[in-house]
Each structure stands twice: as C-alpha cells, then as structure tokens.
C-alpha cells in the first residue's frame, strides 16, 4: 500500500533518518518500534506531510507520490493520531473532530444537526457513546481526549491510519477498546501503523514489527516474535531484568498520620530510609493529589506529617524543598520542564534561592549531572525542547538531584520513555536508595512497581487500601485492590 524508499532527513546537521526503506501492506497492523529519538515520529511526520524529506521517495499503491502538506496526505487517505495532542481545549468534541470538513447545509453554512449526528455515530463506533458531541474537550479526561483524537482521524475515512502512542496516557481497559477498534478497522481493510513503547501491546495486535534505531532501519519481523528479540534489535542490548536488592533500613524518614485533602482521605503510612515505597492505583485514585499535598503544592485539611521525626507542615513547594523533599511530576512538559530553556537552566531551576547567578558554576554543575545521569545532548546549552522524551525526563531528575534530596517523590518516572532510558532511570533511583535516600514511587506500570518497590501501597478512590510487602505482591493482588474488589 505504502512503500518508502531511501528516506533521509536531517535537522540542523543531525541525521534523524538515514536511507530508511519500508513497506506497509494493506490491511495489516504494522508496529514501528525504536527508542525515543530513533526517528519514528520524524518518519510519521514525513508520511503525513508535516515535514518534507531531504531525500527518498514515497510510493502509494506503487505510484510515486509527493506529499507536500497534511491536506495532501489526507486527500490520498492517510490520517494520523498525533502523540502531541492536536485538540483545541475550548471547542466542543464535534468541532474538534471536524475542523475543516464540516457538513454544510444548502445555504453553505455549517449544518450543526448533521455535524452532531455524524459525531455521535463516530463516538458510538469507538464505544464511547457516553460522550456527547457538544461536550467541551477541555473538560475531558486524558483517555477521553485520546478517543476524540482517534475519532478525529477516523472522520476522514482513512485508508492508512497512523497511531503514534495512542495508549500513552490511558489505562489497560481503555487500551483494550483501542485494540478492538484497530481490529475492526483491519477487517475493513484499513492499514495501520502503530507506534508504542509497550511491548505487550505490540505482541497483542501487531502483524508485523519494524524496528528503527538511531534513524536507521533495523529490519522487519513477524508480530509474534519474542519481545526480547525485538528489544535486542531496538537497543542492541538485553533488557535488564535482574532483581534489585533492597536498601531499606529501619529509621523512619516520613511518617504520615491520617492526612486528608482534596482527592484523598485519611491516609497513613511510614516511609523508611533507603526504601522505595510504590503506589499503585487507577487514574483518579488520589495518588497524585496526595503526592502534591506532601510536596506542599496543595493544602492538607487534616492529619499530621513527620519528617525525620520532626513535625512537617508545608505551605508551598519551597517549604518541601527546604525540608529535602523533591517531586517529579507526571506531566514533564507542562509541570516539570522549561521547554524553551537550556538543559543547564532547567537543572538550576530548583536552586534559585538567593545571591548571584553565576553562569560558569551553573554550567559546571549541569555538565556534572549530565555525565552522571547520562543525558544525551551535545551541550548543556541545548534547548530541552529538542531532546527526546527519555532525556527530557532525565533533565527533570537532574534538576532534583542537584539539590541532593532526602526524599524523592516520583510520579510516573518512565512515562513515554524508551526502554534504554527506562533502565537508566531505574538505576538512578536505586543509586539514591543505596545512599539511604527514600523514594516514593507512583506508577501505573505494575512491572515497574514490582521490580523496584520494597513495599507497594494500593490506593482506590482516595483511600489507602493496603500496603503489600514485595514478597507477597503479585499483579493480580494489586489489580484487585486497585479496582476496589477486595
């Protein structure tokens, strides 16, 4: 259906793609794998006409095509669901789904009734009939937004649908819905290019898998190929699956007694020195809200907290920082990073206490942390926006490491991060505990929790349901508590 031949593209001297040739057959689900920065998104942008390739040709049904703009790619039947959300928060669902090709009535005006009907049909197909076309997108949850995003792409009746990490911000059950849709589309003969970091998903739905590494094509294998083989193609090294030993000591670092606030209720637990305490739960279970309250970003209505045996009552994040607590937010782009600032500036952002701003010292400090955390960037003067997701996440970590915190709260530390960077982030966290620092780990990836945590706390509906020891925790048990079944 679509064949790429010798596609190359470079950005200001850096080769993002080198001589990539790929074939996408009609009616297949073709997964595209690679670490962040491997060139997947660039390739998809070329296919969808967002950017132009420096070299190479595209063949659509064996006829050479030039795709100069998004409109052109849409007209031949290519639709893309972007990783970066392309929705306008202030508009309704139907307006978002039909930004240009709205149904028109005889007077040439937008036919709102038809628009609403068409939207309703699309939403029903996606099994999200509970959403009404007139709802404002800004009020939707992020999984709901992903659905709208997919609906928007489907509205153009594509022959080739590109899904760029559609499940990055949604839960497992919602991902199932996406898979059902993918299978349905496949039956209709629509080709799908599927990009995801979740290997299990690729195993589930992909017919074929192609791998990119550092902008180069690594090969194509069948969908049922074992994960370890695919990963080896991606990173060129084995996925680390060693069981970490525990560093947990006895002295209590943080003791929480019956705290309540907006979104969480009556929570008590203790966190020991050198311990990683995992927090499992569904989206909206109150984990993030609790973490933010401990960090002083939101108010605590009831209860008391003790840090190193002393009463601790933060009013603002800077109180928490002064007390030696750091918080890595789940959404690094909106809450963790200054995208238009350099790596060095991002790293220093937590250290703006007083005195003079000495650029040289800052660069040295940043350079050190860059080496320590292995942030891949030519220079610390590089804008963070230009880094890949994994490296961006390391910058957020670096900005907290610069303060040498006693307690690090990490919220989804490996969200949208490739396998290689993931392992490095795990190592960084374990390094901290080896120095008897404590880590509070919030994650929606059960494997991650089971691998890293000394104990796993499960939250449901704003309450702490259970704290499981590593020895007794299994995926099933955690899931049962998280769903409130137990």
């Amino acid at each position, binding site marked *: 259906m679509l064949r790429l031949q010798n596609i190359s593209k470079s950005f200001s001297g850096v080769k993002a793609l080198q001589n990539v040739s790929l074939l996408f057959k009609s009616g297949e689900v073709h997964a595209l794998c690679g670490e962040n920065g491997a060139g997947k998104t660039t390739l998809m942008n070329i296919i969808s006409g967002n950017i132009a390739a420096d070299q190479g040709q595209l063949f659509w049904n064996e006829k050479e095509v030039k795709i100069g703009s998004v409109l052109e790619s849409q007209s031949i039947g290519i639709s893309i669901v972007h990783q970066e959300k392309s929705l306008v928060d202030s508009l309704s669902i139907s307006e978002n789904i039909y930004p240009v090709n709205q149904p028109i009535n005889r007077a040439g005006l937008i036919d709102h009734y038809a628009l609403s009907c068409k939207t309703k049909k699309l939403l029903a197909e996606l099994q999200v009939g509970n959403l009404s076309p007139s709802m404002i997108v800004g009020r939707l949850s992020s999984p709901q937004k992903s659905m709208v995003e997919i609906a928007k792409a489907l509205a153009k009746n594509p022959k080739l649908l590109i899904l760029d990490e559609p499940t990055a911000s949604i839960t497992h059950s919602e991902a199932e819905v996406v898979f059902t849709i993918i299978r349905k589309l496949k039956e209709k003969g629509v080709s799908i290019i599927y990009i995801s970091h979740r290997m299990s998903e690729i195993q589930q739905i992909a017919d074929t898998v192609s791998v990119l590494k550092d902008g180069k094509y690594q090969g194509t294998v069948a969908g049922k190929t074992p994960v370890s083989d695919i990963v080896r193609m991606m990173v060129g090294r084995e996925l680390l699956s060693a069981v970490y030993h525990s560093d947990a000591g006895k002295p209590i670092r943080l003791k929480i007694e019956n705290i309540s606030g907006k979104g969480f209720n009556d929570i008590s637990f203790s966190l020991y020195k050198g311990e990683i305490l995992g927090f499992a739960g569904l989206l909206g279970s109150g984990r993030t809200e609790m973490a933010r309250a401990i960090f002083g970003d939101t108010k605590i209505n009831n209860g008391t907290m003790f840090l190193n045996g002393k009463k601790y009552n933060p009013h*603002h*994040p800077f109180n928490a920082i002064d007390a030696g607590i750091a918080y890595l937010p789940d959404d690094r782009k909106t809450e963790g990073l200054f995208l238009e600032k350099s790596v060095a500036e991002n790293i220093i952002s937590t250290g*703006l206490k007083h005195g*003079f701003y000495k650029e040289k010292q800052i660069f040295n400090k940043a350079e050190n942390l860059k080496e320590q955390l292995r942030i891949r960037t030519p220079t610390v003067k590089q804008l963070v926006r230009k880094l890949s997701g994994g490296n961006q996440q390391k910058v957020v970590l670096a*900005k907290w490491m610069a303060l040498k915190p006693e307690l690090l709260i990490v919220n989804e530390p490996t969200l949208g991060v490739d396998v290689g960077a993931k392992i490095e982030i795990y190592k960084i966290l374990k390094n901290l505990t080896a120095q008897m620092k404590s880590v509070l780990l919030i994650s929606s990836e059960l494997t991650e929790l089971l691998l890293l945590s000394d104990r796993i706390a499960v939250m449901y509906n704003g309450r702490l349901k259970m704290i499981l020891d590593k020895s007794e925790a299994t995926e099933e048990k955690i899931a049962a508590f998280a769903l409130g079944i137990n």
Partner: protein
Amino acid sequence: MEIKERLRDRIFSLGASIILLCIIMALVYPNKFPTLENFSQIMLNLSIDTIVAVGMMILMIGGMFDLSVGSIVAFAGGMAGYLMYYYDVNFIIAIIAALTGSTMIGFINGWLIAKIGINPMIQTLAMMGIVRGFALMLSGAGIQNFPYDFIYIGQSKLAGLQAPVWYMLAIVFVFGFLVNNTVFFRRYYFIGGNEKAARLSGINVKKMKIWGFVISALLAGIAGLLLSSRLGAALSTSGQGLELRVITAVILGGASLAGGVGKIWGAFLGVLFMALINNLLIISRVSGYWQEVILGAILIIAVGIDQLLLKRLDK
C-alpha cells in the same frame, strides 16, 4: 556556530538595523541628523520611555505586562507637583511620596493578580483608568512653577546630555546587570517559561509576580517625576498611549508575549529604534497622516526580517 547563535539574538539584529538606519539617515540628511544636538535630543526623548520599558521588560520576561504604567507616569508627576505647589512640601518628601504612591499602585496590581487571580490585562486596564482619574484630579489643568530644586533634577546637563539621559543609562546598566546576574531576577525567566514548573521547582511565583508589578510601577513613577521635572510641568495627559508604545518596543527588543525571553538591553534598543524612526519622520517632515502608517509598516518589516533570518538559520 558562535556567529549563528549571535545572529539569532534579537539584540544583535536590532542593533544592526539601528546602525543601518543611522547610516542611511546620515547620508540622506547630513546637516540635520548626525549632529550632537539632534543626538542628545533623541536620547532625551527616549529616556522616559526606556525607564518604563525596563520595568515592562522584567514583567514580560515573567510572562506578564502592565497597562497602567502610562497612567502612573502622569500620577507620579501630578502627585509630586500637587504637594509642592499647593502645600509647599519639600521636593524630596514630594518625590518620596510620589514614588511610594506609585509602588502602592504596583503592589495592588500585583496582589490582585497573584493572590486573587484577576486577569492581568483586565486588572491593569482597570487600574489604568483609575490612576488616570487620580492624575487628572491631582494635576487638573496642569501644575507649573515647581521649586528650583525639583527642576534641577530633570533639566541640568552633564557632558552635553540632559540629566534624564544619565538616569536612564544608570537604570539600564543597573537592571541589566541585576537581571543577568542575580538569582532573584533570573526567576522571572523561569516563571515566564513555565509557571507551573516554576512553582513546583520551589519558586514563590505569587511573591515574584507582586514584586514584578511593584518594580514596574516604581520605574514608571521615576519616569513620571523625570518627565514633569524636565517639562517643568505636571500634565494630566502625559503618558497617554505610553503603555502600548513601550510594550511594542519591548517586543521589538526581544521579549515575547508568552514570556520567558528578553534582555534589558533589548528594551533599550527597542525604544531607541522607535525613537530613531520618530526622529526620521520629524526630520523628513512627514505629515501626521502618514506617520502611523509608516511606523506600522517599519515595525512589520523589522519583525518580519527578523523572523525570516531565524528561519534561514534554523535550516
């Protein structure tokens, strides 16, 4: 790479345009433009705007702006004039009172915006009207006959340049240094870059916002005092339209409405560029009908070339 980085800097491209403009003007009007008298006149005229622009630049780096500065300029002059003329207050006390009043206005702006969460545009727009009203009440039909000491501040000369020019240069230097080299002012770059992330990085965003408006209002107050001292009169209409002029100059000088970028020197160069164009229009006797058209066109060309240059460099 170094040169490329440099070209990317607005200060560099704006500086180049200014030099180019000067050369062209010197060639076309060799008798009128490149004279010491004309130069000192240009500097004098831009000094008031620049002082206000420094405060505006700090705010805009932090992703905010203040529409009430023009009114504060009139208010500060009016208040000092009122006290000196009607109550024979010593000029130093009058100055302190006027500056205190200005900072209070800034504090109210900042407090309501940061703590209550009023939209900065609405807040400062409303404040612009309120303060203009006060200025009108204070200076009425205009106050003249200030004490000599007060006139001295704005009308004495040093090395051929009138005092406001020196104050302006001092303020540009001091704030240029502070913004570049102190942690306090550096925080504005982070607040403007990503307010949420700044808060979560431990920056007291609300406090910094209040300070931003206070500094901007204080500088506007100083500008107002200098203006009235220089004119020897407090005018209730002074500073009208100043806010937009200054915001334009500051954006021209490298700030962005989104915040996070800009340099104090950029503010100075932005104002200088606009003052040169104004001087060009006067020297070439362009009639009032065309002034706005030409000014608008030049702004678009200046910013347009800049964008084209950036695109070229990004390739």
